[in-house]
């Protein structure tokens, strides 16, 4: 596991400057990692352009993940790099997966949108909007049955608020008193459609209240505000009262790497980027007496760590061709016959 994910015990008590520094570091790591993902794409080393950056959303990932404990599980949406990093992901293996390399979390078969790691309780990122949500109901059932107190969390964006599967899932989680959390990272845009062009019901948590969940909407500018709400809701979820948390933030860049955001104005982008949770946290730290030079040094250390992840990804091998038919079925099952092998067999008989 990588150094000090948010889930690990912070050095300082909540509300202290040390605690905030921990959160700042985790957020900065996400910011820098995402910037390097963009670089990987520009250098032509990413596997495709389906790269969805979470820059501007770092407080949502770090604040919510701070409420998670060992043994907790989660699923994410397609914009989930930050959540997994906050939970302790190894940036090398993440970057390698994004590059489609054999050293990646999924041996290069998943990519940015399908990163998973059972060791860290990551039941999978998902490329279908809302697709990963109901799995946490099943994981919650298993947790409740075993009495482990583990909470399973679905992370998704505001786009999934308009998907039916969310409501089926929230309803069952509430009906069965499951240790489940639903965390909506509301970055204002489902691809190019702003939330107020997608729904009249923009008070997102009200929908969860209707299903009997504990629910809150918070502003995501300050990570400790997010964390405080998450702690409260996760505590309830551990006791069998599922929760819903909507965190409002702003997606700094386009939907994916090639999207230049023609659907929003420069002014909107400028104002949105002023609500920068990383800069906000840094300014708070300095205002509370932290030396800016120390923060610069921390940033530089993180930059080196993330630079190394690019080198690791680029230096890693592609998966071997013979892995192509592996893992369609279980390890002891016969692999599917390739089209080529089948053709050769049929033609040899002709």
């Amino acid at each position, binding site marked *: 596991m990588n150094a000090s994910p948010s889930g690990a015990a912070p050095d300082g008590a909540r509300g202290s400057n040390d605690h905030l520094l921990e959160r700042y570091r985790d957020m900065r790591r996400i910011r820098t990692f995402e910037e390097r993902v963009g670089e990987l794409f520009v250098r032509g080393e990413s596997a495709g352009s389906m790269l969805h950056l979470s820059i501007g959303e770092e407080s949502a990932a770090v604040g919510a993940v701070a409420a998670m404990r060992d043994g907790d599980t989660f699923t994410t949406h397609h914009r989930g790099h930050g959540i997994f990093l906050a939970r302790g992901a190894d940036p090398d293996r993440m970057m390698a997966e994004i590059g489609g390399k054999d050293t990646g979390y*999924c041996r290069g078969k998943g990519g940015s949108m399908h990163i998973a790691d059972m060791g860290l309780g990551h039941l999978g990122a998902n490329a279908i909007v809302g697709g990963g949500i109901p*799995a946490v*109901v099943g994981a919650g059932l298993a947790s409740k049955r075993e009495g482990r107190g583990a909470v399973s969390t679905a992370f998704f964006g505001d786009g999934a608020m308009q998907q039916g599967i969310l409501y089926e899932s929230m309803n069952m989680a509430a009906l069965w008193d499951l240790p489940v959390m639903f965390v909506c990272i509301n970055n204002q845009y489902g691809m190019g459609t702003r939330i107020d062009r997608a729904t009249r019901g923009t008070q997102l948590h009200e929908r969860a209240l209707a299903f009997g969940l504990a629910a809150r909407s918070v502003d995501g500018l300050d990570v400790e505000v997010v964390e405080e709400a998450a702690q409260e809701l996760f505590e309830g979820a551990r006791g069998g009262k599922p929760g819903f948390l909507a965190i409002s933030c702003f997606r700094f860049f386009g939907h994916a790497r090639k999207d230049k955001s023609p659907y929003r104005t420069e002014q909107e982008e400028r104002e949105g980027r002023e609500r920068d949770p990383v800069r906000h946290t840094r300014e708070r730290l300095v205002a509370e007496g932290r030396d800016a030079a120390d923060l610069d040094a921390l940033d530089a250390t993180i930059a080196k760590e993330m630079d190394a992840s690019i080198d690791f990804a680029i230096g890693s091998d592609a998966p071997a061709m013979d892995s192509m038919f592996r893992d369609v079925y279980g390890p002891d099952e016969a692999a599917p016959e390739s089209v080529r092998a089948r053709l050769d067999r049929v033609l040899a008989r002709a």
Partner: protein
Amino acid sequence: MAQITYRDALRQALVDAMEADDSVLVIGEEVGRYGGAYGVTKGLIEQFGQARVLDTPISEAGIVGTAVGAAMSGLRPVAELMYVDFIGMTMDQLCNQAAKIRYMFGGQIGVPMVLRTQGGTGRSAGAQHSQSLEGLVMHTPGLRLVMPATAYDAYHLLRQSLVQPDPVVFIEHKGLYTMKEEADLAAEPPAWGKAVVRRPGADLVIVTYSRQVHQALAAAEALAADGIQACVIDLRTLNPLDFDTVRTEVEKVGRAMVVSEAVMTAGVAAELAARISEECFDYLEQPVLRIAGEDIPISVSVELEANSVPTPALIEHAARRLVE
């Protein structure tokens, strides 16, 4: 040997599996207090309790998605989809999630769940409750597909499905639930993924599965009266597909037809016929025939419904032409 219905064999399989493995649980609409729309899960909630027999809201996608998450968390869920016609509601969870998780995640984890459902005609259930949609499942790598024709197979294939490492779609036929047969469920189970020759025959091979096995056997009986010997192969599982048995029999005989209740175009019968044509070409004396469902929705009218899918008379008619 005891007489047992297809339905009771399925129920017995669930009971035995739940007794043998504490991680097996049943989840679906009306599976508990109601006892299952077709009665397969009757009595389970009394025996195993609400924690293992979960009545759900009418949320098919949520049911399958919950089963996916439960299967990834150490449980062995048997999700019930009341009618295979509702599979459209679950396609994302089934085809994008359950089927692909092992592969997408580089083999880290599988989804060992069973989706029990039923399909087919025979109860005047209309166009949205009578379909044969196995082709959708067979077209999705990662999903196993089981379609038993007998009570004995229903029992054993369900037990075997519950020890598979991968998601299994288990499609029962609504027209078979009350069918009785002499079956010793304690006898040696069939080999998983192997077809069975239900009737040997030297004149033509009929490849089929599920209820059409019985239609084919009825046709074979009528043909035998005129000295035409039809071999009937029951595939039992469509994934894995035991093509070796098909090839062996077709190469012996040189004439083959595929019988399926699903609509003909781009269907299971088309796939099987193509394979036979491709792999057994040198042995074939006639084109491979498809006897399949008409390319139309199913009517509620008893007469129209019965003629929308292969009948013994149609199979017999085609067989006579094939051996002429």
